[in-house]
């Protein structure tokens, strides 16, 4: 590029600037070493971040496992869930009392023995939840009584259901027989 007089003056100024910069330029070896050092430091920081993340994940998994074990070993709560207590909003303690009223065969015993800790709690609970309506319906059906049952009752029900004793007197037996005079 051809330079005019003015351009030459600018170039001379730039040349002077260059000389000034060269005096304060850091050595290449020092800069290269520093670059490697900062790279190593960055790698260490990165490793530390990964280690911290792994520790946090491990803690979370461990606490989840502990919680699930505690939850599975609590028979009262499991029983309450299985029998619809949680869904219906009834106090689990109340359900424990009601448990005695339910016939033994109809009870749903969820926890019969301590299970090993497994990570299928959610699946199990989903299965239990699916059984909830069926169980509660079965209990309701077994307890059902017709509203007109009371009309069929009479004071002599006991006599009708019982067989006469062999040593019972004839007079007593006649009282049950229709009057012949009629």
């Amino acid at each position, binding site marked *: *590029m051809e330079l005019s007089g003015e351009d030459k003056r600018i170039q001379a100024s*730039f040349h002077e600037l260059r000389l000034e*910069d060269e005096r304060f330029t850091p050595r290449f070896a020092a800069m290269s070493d520093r670059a490697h050092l900062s790279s190593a430091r960055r790698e260490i920081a990165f490793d530390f971040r990964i280690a911290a993340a792994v520790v946090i994940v491990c803690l979370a998994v461990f606490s989840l496992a502990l919680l699930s074990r505690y939850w599975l070993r609590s028979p009262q709560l499991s029983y309450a869930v299985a029998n619809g207590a949680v869904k219906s909003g009834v106090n689990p303690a109340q359900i424990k009392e009601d448990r005695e009223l339910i016939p033994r065969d109809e009870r749903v015993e969820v926890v019969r023995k301590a299970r090993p800790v497994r990570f299928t709690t959610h699946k199990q609970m989903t299965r239990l939840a699916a059984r909830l309506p069926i169980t509660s319906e079965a209990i309701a059906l077994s307890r059902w009584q017709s509203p007109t049952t009371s009309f069929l009752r009479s004071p002599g029900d006991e006599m009708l259901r019982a067989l006469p004793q062999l040593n019972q007197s004839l007079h007593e037996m006649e009282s049950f027989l229709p009057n012949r005079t009629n």
Partner: protein
Amino acid sequence: MNISELKAELEKLHSSSFGWALSCCRRDGGEAEEVLQTVYLKILEGKARFRGESSFRTWLFAVIHKTAAGERRKSLLRKLRLLGESQGRIDRIASAERPDAAAERSETQTRFQRALEQLPVRQRQTLHLVFYQDLSLREAADVMDISVGSARRHYERGKQRLRESLGEAEIGYGVKWRGQKNPGVVS
């Protein structure tokens, strides 16, 4: 190009690279060192690869230019996040110039650097690449990732503005100097 060849090339161009990094970092020595360090790391770790599409020097200067722009963006974000700290950083940048260099510098050179600082970034960088680094306008355009036409426009306008500000400074200096020597002449 293997690592040892790369290192040899970088060492050969180290002084020019530092000058270009200084220009990209508004003559802040600390920032320029940081940028150059990052560039070396990028190249030696293989994150920036020379494919031989241009000369090594043009490619290296382009990497420095991009890295400096990235660093500037990061520092702007930092400033936005911590406004209080940014004030301190601005003060640091303003006083980043070496005092011994400033003391030894000639009056003409001081005026020249002041005039250069007043130029827009693109114009200042084009002039730097052409006059300081002895690159052609095409190479300067490649480094700055702009068209040759734009580079030429920045070059012409930059020269014009530099001449004007230098002329104004000289006139101002002369009047002041004469005023001090003979106060009666200037009221």
